[in-house]
């Protein structure tokens, strides 16, 4: 139906979405956000909480994550739960590249988000150096409520997406299997507290200035 391609939709020459496009956005986003199948990439203790989230007591099927999709080809949201060593970086990137658009990523727990306490030779310092991340769930490990809150936040994010903005769903074939961030940024993230500081800064929710958080930074 051409719904996936922004250029095929009636968009005003100015680039501003017309009335019809906005209604289509609503329909498409409604469908997408209420049928997100997770690709569980569970590598550590966070995966236990992820399993608990899917089990009867918390049951993320209530929110549209009807089943865990153990094939990346049928998955919509990759949940990276647990620490990722460098040896797992390549499989993680490959799984992400195998997932069809539209796709999202949740980084669950401190280790996936920033390397956590494992600032060592073997550990990836945050999976956002490997793949783009939409929602970071803090905690060590996060409770199922935390993961569900992250999934609901992702649904909120999807509400704001528009088909007229095709760029957010475009992937550069040359970047398949490459790091997600430029080398300088990865170096910056690898500094002590680097990744958590950067995530706070990009979120805009927490002040990372020297005055506000003098103890976090090494200047």
């Amino acid at each position, binding site marked *: 139906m051409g719904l996936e391609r922004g250029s095929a939709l009636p968009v005003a020459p100015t680039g501003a979405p017309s009335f019809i496009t906005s209604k289509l956005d609503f329909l498409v986003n409604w469908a997408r956000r209420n049928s997100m199948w997770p690709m569980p990439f569970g590598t550590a203790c966070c995966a236990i909480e992820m399993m608990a989230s899917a089990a009867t007591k918390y049951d993320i099927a209530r929110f549209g994550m009807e089943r865990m999709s153990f094939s990346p080809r049928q998955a919509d949201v990759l949940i990276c739960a647990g620490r990722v060593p*460098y*040896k797992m*970086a*390549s499989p993680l*990137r490959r799984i992400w590249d195998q997932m069809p658009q539209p796709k999202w990523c949740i980084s669950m727990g401190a280790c996936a988000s920033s390397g956590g306490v494992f*600032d*060592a*030779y*073997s550990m*990836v*310092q945050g999976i956002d*150096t*490997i793949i783009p991340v939409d929602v970071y769930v803090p905690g060590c490990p996060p409770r199922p409520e935390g993961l569900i809150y992250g999934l609901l936040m992702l649904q909120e994010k999807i509400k704001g997406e528009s088909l007229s903005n095709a760029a957010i769903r475009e992937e550069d074939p040359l970047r398949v*299997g*490459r*790091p997600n961030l430029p*080398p*300088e940024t*990865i*170096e910056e*993230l*690898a500094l*002590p507290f680097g990744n958590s500081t950067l995530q706070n800064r990009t979120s805009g929710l927490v002040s990372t200035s020297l005055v506000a958080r003098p103890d976090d930074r*090494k200047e």
Partner: protein
Amino acid sequence: MMADKDFEAGLGGLDEGPAASATDPETPFGEAGDAADHPTVAALHERFGAAILHHGVVAGDEHVVHIQPERNAEILRWLKEDPGQRYLYLSDVTAVDFGGGRPLEVVYQLWSMELKRQIRLKAQLPLAALEIDSAVPIWQAANWLEREVFDLFGITFRGHPDLRRIMMPDNYAEGHPLRKDFPLRGRFSRAEQTRRALSMEVEDYYTPEELGIAGDKHRHGQEAGA
């Protein structure tokens, strides 16, 4: 600003690796134990004499015997096959690096289920000659354990059938991570580590045989013979 100085010192320490362990030159192996407490130790002394360098007891009742590294295979085989010992189960092979240029210690943990005995053997290897005979001909269990020691400490096991890395990728170029002189965060920058990790293919982790994609002509033995 005292806290800042501590922080700087801590960061520097991360890159230098851990400090060397202290040792007492008077008793480099620790306190001597009573060989009469353990029948195997007495038998080892009687049979191998000068190859048994020291015997000690740690943690109450764990007997540790230091042996000459040149005779490790002979001693291990005797411990397994002698009817009075019967250490059929090799529960662990590992190594210790004390840092500061001290020799690396290869550790064998043996268990005789028949006679309900345990014993620990240690052999010291100078940093200049990190080679010792493999225990794989004696216990198959030594195969992966010795690969792990080779991977993380860089000790070569003579006669091992398949000595290659087991934990780190085959083309890992930063050295042996559990050595004391290895910096905690690795030798390469994070960007380089990420780039290398992502550029690896499954062939860097597994042999064609393990992947099941090799024809018969690629098998190890025939390749060597041809």
